[in-house]
């Protein structure tokens, strides 16, 4: 499976990453190698086989639907890289385009 510039461009944008050109070349080569390896799954006949996304057969175990205390605001904000009042502060989102 060839990984060309367009594919890697899409992936870095979906993954919210920005790769420098040197790193990009190494990653493209490694991606191609790993995808080449995993292609062996094509040999397995999976016609009509249900996919497994979790091995737990009993299904989710839900807790009682009762209110309980959650993280206090001050604690939740204590590690914010930037805050304003009771909010996380982020760079401008709206207004440019």
């Amino acid at each position, binding site marked *: 499976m060839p990984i060309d510039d367009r594919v890697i461009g899409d992936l870095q944008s979906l993954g919210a990453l920005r790769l420098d050109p040197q790193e990009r070349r190494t990653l493209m080569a490694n991606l191609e190698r*790993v995808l080449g*390896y995993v292609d062996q*799954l*094509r040999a397995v006949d999976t016609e009509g*086989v249900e*996919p497994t996304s979790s*091995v737990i057969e009993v299904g989710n175990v839900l807790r009682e639907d009762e209110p309980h205390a959650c993280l206090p605001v001050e604690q*939740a904000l204590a590690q914010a890289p930037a805050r304003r009042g009771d909010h*996380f502060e982020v760079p401008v989102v709206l207004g*440019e385009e």
Partner: protein
Amino acid sequence: MGLHRLSVEELQAALRSGECTPAEIYASCRAAADSAQPHIRAFNRFEDGPPPPRGDAGSAPLHGIPYASKENIAVAGRPLTCNSRILANYRPPYDATVTERLRAAGAMLLGQTNMDEFAMGSSTENSATGPTQNPWDLARTPGGSSGGSAAAVAADAVPFALGSDTGGSIRQPAGCCGVVGLKPTYGRVSRWGLVAFASSLDQIGPITRTVRDAALVYRELAGHDPRDSTCLPAPVEDPLAGIEQGPRGLTLGVPRALLKEGLDREVAANLDEVLARLAREGASLIEVDLPMMRYAIATYYILATAEASSNLARYDGVRYGVRAQASDLDEMYRASRTRGFGREVTLRILLGTYVLSAGYYDAYYRKASQVRTLMRREVVAALSRCDAIVLPTSPTPAFKLGERVDDPLQMYLSDVFTVSANLTGIPAIAVPSGLTRAGLPLSLQLMGRPLQESLLLRAARALEQVCGFAALRKARQPLPGEGVPA
């Protein structure tokens, strides 16, 4: 008196008879860890001192026992870096369930250990703060990703440590370091407070020097937790009750066809020798056919990276962790993530994004999920004919630092025998089984039936006994300064 060299069980006996106090044990372990640290760099950090005493030997099952914890398991107020730059400054406001349970059981945290960034790796070389060395040979890796935890136990710095296992990250480093590593059944131990890598595969477990110690610690970790919806409400039997029943009456399955290629000669010879000894002691050996296991690595690297790419989307520099300055929000996300993640984590995010993206989803993610179903059926069928499946933990003993670090695929193949237990959710344990001629630990793995950790541990104890590794452990060359009284 070398308290740091004693097992959990031996320490419990010494405490009960009044030969020593928790403070003395803690000091002995800390001195051993300090002396080993410059050579193996197993720890990220140490606690300032022992916690206030909790209970006594009667009420708290792990009273006075020091331990080390992999740094992807939350301890309130302590760093939880996952050895990633992106979490370099992060301190969780709460304890993981396992941290809470061990504290309630009287265990004393000594320090937190080095790991591959976000548990992605098999050598601890992907740590943003540098690798850990193997106490058996400082030129070799301790395995990974729980390499710091395995090295700390092997170097006699702590009697037990916690690790997490997504594709072999407890068992493979335990194998490389000559210690015991147990990955319980998926859902047995709460993942609350464990930083998520691949949520359908992750499981916490103990790394110890003996199988009995693994059972003792496992007993405290296991059990339902309402805060983790995948944590099973099934009752936990006492794994120590029948643990000494020995090999007689055990049926062990050997996947011979799978072991024909790619095995190191000494690993293969060790397996045959140990199987012969088990048979002599009364175990029955049968052959089991696991053709789907050939596809385990391919299946694993599709599913684990898909889950990881989703789980790691949360690191965006907004609520916690390291933020890179930028003038707009998208650029801030990209700059924070690009600077924050190392090369292997970036590769896995890209790979996971690829296999989940439109147009490739069916060919990769869906296909791998179907193969996972076939693997589970196959393993369950094999385990209906035997009590446990025996195979090596890794195809080779511990490899050299730097040997595989530039070749991700070669690194992935270190886990060829371990990933299937995660994909199928079954419990598995690595037990030291001998030494190579060059004096490196060898290790065999047992895989058991879901939720039957007691039977698995009994089989592991039998294997440990026929291997007699306790005597071989003494062959490890002491680290510089090790054993010199402070």
